[in-house]
């Protein structure tokens, strides 16, 4: 997988064998470049589809061990309200209405 390395080298002058420098360039430097340069770099990257012209010979460095993500920080991806089906939609709306009315009742 070397397309990202090729692009970072071409547009940022980054050493393509330095994986961390490539990553840093995409995260920190690329967003600061003129829009036209970003467009050109991204278009080329999309076209390469992750396949660079040459293989990177650098040793792959992985992230340090991380804890598992939490469910709370990973909410289910949203989908159109109607996709849930009429029964769920009605129960959701009914739940909201009932929740709102019970809130009103609780207010002094």
């Amino acid at each position, binding site marked *: *997988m070397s397309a*990202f390395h090729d692009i970072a080298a071409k547009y940022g002058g980054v050493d393509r064998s330095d*994986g961390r420098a*490539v*990553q840093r360039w*995409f*995260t920190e430097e*690329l*967003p600061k470049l003129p*829009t036209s340069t*970003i*467009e050109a770099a*991204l*278009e*080329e*990257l*999309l*076209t*390469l*589809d*992750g*396949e660079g012209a040459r293989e990177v010979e650098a040793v*792959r460095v*992985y*992230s*340090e*061990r*991380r*804890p*598992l*993500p*939490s*469910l*709370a*920080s*990973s*909410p*289910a*991806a949203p*989908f*159109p309200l*109607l*996709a*849930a089906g009429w029964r769920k939609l009605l129960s959701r709306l009914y739940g909201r209405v009932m929740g709102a009315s019970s809130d009103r009742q609780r207010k002094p």
Partner: protein
Amino acid sequence: MGIFRKWRGVPFTQKAPTASGEHVSIRVAKMTAVHVLWWDSHVQPIVDRDPERADNGWNWLLYVPFAEIAGRVLTRKPAGYTVGICDQERDHLIPCALVQLLGRVPALDDHDRESVFVWFLSTAPDEALTAIDEHPIPVDRIPRRLGTIALDVAVTHSLNERRLGRTALYADKRGGGALLQWYHRRGMTVLPNGEQLPPGPRRLLKPNDGRYYYYTVPAAIEASEGLDSLR
């Protein structure tokens, strides 16, 4: 039911079959840096031990900033999703598949229509899920059909974003003929070798070599309906 599915959208899958015969609860979430960092620290090293895998050597840490930048600058509407096993008791989401999409590209079979393009799709090897220190998953509780479920994420995104299920991808050469067969069995159509890609740089720089696949609208709906029991 297809017409309703096209216009009202469809929910993502919420469970997956296992060897035990029971289903395991899964969640499709928007991909975050936390998911990707865990994947890079735990799953990718195991993927990289197998040189025959199409996702060998991938670096998801680069795809997340890419998606953020591309979303702002280009009009391809990139989107990333994580498919994870839900553990309600310990509040864990265990990523078992990652999908990076482009939400707005010309369709391969009709260049005037818009389609979703699967840019990267990866599923965790069984070993990566049974060897989690703080949460080892028994072999018979590992979710099955993960590839199909991950591909369904793209089709669902397409249906929900008014692309009518149109979904395309390029089958990585490292996957060989087996990968082509796998997409064929999922109901995808190969773009005949020699037929041109939609206008754009890809047509010149990565021309059709017989490894571009796509879902027609009817085939996408049929594939989507095939997973309804898991939604």
